[in-house]
């Protein structure tokens, strides 16, 4: 049990607990709608990047089309709830079902490709979905966007209150992180890492690699679809640009910065890039005019620096610092004590 957990990064309970404690701190001490809004968006994007991290970091397959799955989820939820009055959670499941089918149809042929061709194919797919959304204006509102999407409510509790929505989204993030970890720690995870390192070697072991690739592609698409549904109910308005190839690229940037070889890298990268953007937007106007341009520059500089000095992303570097700090052992003991007390 203990040594199986050594497969990637040990001590997953620590991370879960620290995220959890952070959540509690935010809930206790934050009263700003805006911070809840930002954290909720980080959560929503994290769900997408968690899936991408499985696909890219573990299985080694690139996708520049995940914003399309994000969009399919968002538009399915939006149209079903707003136009047809379907229950939001049912709509979310419908979105997942539709995404499942589309991802299967796209994944089977596309994943026969490798490298650049695969990247191009997924870009093409993203573009097709984008054009469909714009042109089917009867259904989707076209370029004007689709407005009036209701908020969520559970057991009579109105979740459009930012505080509750933040909680809901992060519970889902933790759940999905947990599921992803279990996948990585199972034999599937080993196969994926095998595919990542050498497809041919894995093939010679008699593993049906294409089936595994498609499965993980579909799973990551489903994650993106769930995130899309959560986005639609949070922002209450969706428009095509949010689901363009540019958004797909931004998801990749988040993973590259966080580190694609770790589940937590997806979340760290998403949070880092979002907070950098927010920070620039808050600080720059105090010093000079034109926050937007500066943000683009800072975004680019951060990406270049990370690629140059931390090619594996932030996580391994952070982990080094952590391991050297001598704090890690103590915190493990603390976590144990925590378990004993609450168990």
């Amino acid at each position, binding site marked *: 049990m203990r040594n199986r957990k050594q497969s990637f990064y040990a001590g997953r309970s620590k991370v879960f607990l620290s995220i959890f404690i952070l959540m509690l701190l935010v809930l206790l001490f934050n009263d700003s709608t*805006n911070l809840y809004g930002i954290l909720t968006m980080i959560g929503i994007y994290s769900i997408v990047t968690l899936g991408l991290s499985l696909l890219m970091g573990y299985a080694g397959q690139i996708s520049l089309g995940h914003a399309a799955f994000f969009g399919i989820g968002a538009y399915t939820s939006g149209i079903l709830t707003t136009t047809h009055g379907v229950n939001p959670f049912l709509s979310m499941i419908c979105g997942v079902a539709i995404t499942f089918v589309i991802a299967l149809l796209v994944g089977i042929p596309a994943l026969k490709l490798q490298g650049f061709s695969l990247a191009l194919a997924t870009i093409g797919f993203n573009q097709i979905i984008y054009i469909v959304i714009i042109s089917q204006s009867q259904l989707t509102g076209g370029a004007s966007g689709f407005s009036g999407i209701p908020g969520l409510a559970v057991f009579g509790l109105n979740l459009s209150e930012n505080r509750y929505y933040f909680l809901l989204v992060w519970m889902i993030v933790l759940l999905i992180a947990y599921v992803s970890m279990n996948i990585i720690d199972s034999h599937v995870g080993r196969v994926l890492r095998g595919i990542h390192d050498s497809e041919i070697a894995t093939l010679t072991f008699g593993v049906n690699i294409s089936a595994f690739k498609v499965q993980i592609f579909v799973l990551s698409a489903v994650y993106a679809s769930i995130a899309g549904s959560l986005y639609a109910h949070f922002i209450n308005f969706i*428009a095509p*640009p949010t689901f363009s190839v540019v958004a797909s690229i931004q998801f990749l940037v988040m993973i590259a910065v966080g580190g694609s070889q770790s589940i937590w890298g997806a979340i760290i990268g998403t949070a880092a890039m979002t907070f950098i953007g927010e920070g620039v937007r808050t600080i720059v106007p105090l010093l000079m005019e034109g*926050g937007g341009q500066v943000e683009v520059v800072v975004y680019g500089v951060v990406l270049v620096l990370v690629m140059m000095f931390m090619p594996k992303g932030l996580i391994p570097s952070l982990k080094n610092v952590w391991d050297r700090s001598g704090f890690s052992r103590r915190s493990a003991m603390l976590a144990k004590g925590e378990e004993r007390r609450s168990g």
Partner: protein
Amino acid sequence: MRKKLGMIVILLLWIALVGCSASSPSNETKSSQAKPSPSGKAEPASGNAGDMVKIGVVLAETGPASGLGKPEIDAIRLVKKKLEAQGGMIGGKKVEIIMKDYETDDTKAVLAMRKLIADEGVSVVYGATQVSTSIALRDIALKNNVVFLSGAPIGQLGETVFQTGQTSEVLIQQMIDYLKSKNIHTVAWINARDAFGQSGLPIMKKLAEPNGIEIVDAEDFDASATDMTVQLSKIKAKNPGALIVWSRTPGAGVVVKNFKQLGFTIPMLQSQAAANDAFLKQVGADGEGVLVQGSKASVAEQLPDSEYKNRLIQHNQEMMAEYNYPGDIFTTKATDAMNIIFKAIEAGNTTSDQIRDFLENQLHEYQGLSGTFRYTKENHAAVDDNGVSLLPIHNGAWSYSK
């Protein structure tokens, strides 16, 4: 052990959820994003404590729509500068303008709007540069009962939503009147496949027939396309008397280039979204004779003498001094939006409800830079077309012909 941990996490989350729903009993979640405040949620968290009024501005200073958003935000900066030079007071009230650049990204616009309402407690918001974004912001404003002045033409307004700048109906009617004056009865239409582009054709179809105009062909193009030869060739085959283009730059400029290449000789009419300097620079010499629905500020010097002309010239001079470019349709629209809000504050209105009431009942005929405002309770978009005109491009500059 791992299973146990999962159970514990879920259990703790439950406790937290229950705990915090219990910890904020004052939350009557009637409206969507409100801070739990002791006063409940009868009005948005009023930043107007005592004598303070906050105005929110959400525009696309950067990103693809910046060609339109930058002039808007610059004009508002100028207004803000003048306000601060007077000590930031209007009618004995401290006025603060809070500007947000949403970078042509709807998500950022929505979050900024929520922040302005819930955290800053603004009474009124002006935005957004694009049609689709304005629709998103409109919904938030209605939900929170905050006055929202939409700079972009959105069809449906609402109880607390007004539109500065003319409706597309008014502007297209002006184009139709021009065609009739030139005895042209057939017209072709081309628009971009974005929110603004798609908003025009239904209105054109509605207005064409009663005015005896026939739309012989309607084409569209991708908003980021760089060649419209195919669409224009189809249009050429139909032999229309004029062409109307409904797109923002750069698409609008590409149409001009292809139009010249294909040797068209008919008049071309462009929408207000092309009425900026970026368009003039883009089309260069190819633009000769193209008519663009622009602000009279662009041709202020050529107007017949009037008090209105003097005000436009003054606006242009101020813009020139500050930013090195003159006023246009976007700067006048944004300036007017701020000025009508200032008028409301001057009359002693600080809350959203008071400002709305003022705009509906007491603004009467306000002579703005972009046109005459005639808001009523029934019509939240009544702005005359007297501030805009079809400006022929002549020698790479705007000219005026009446």
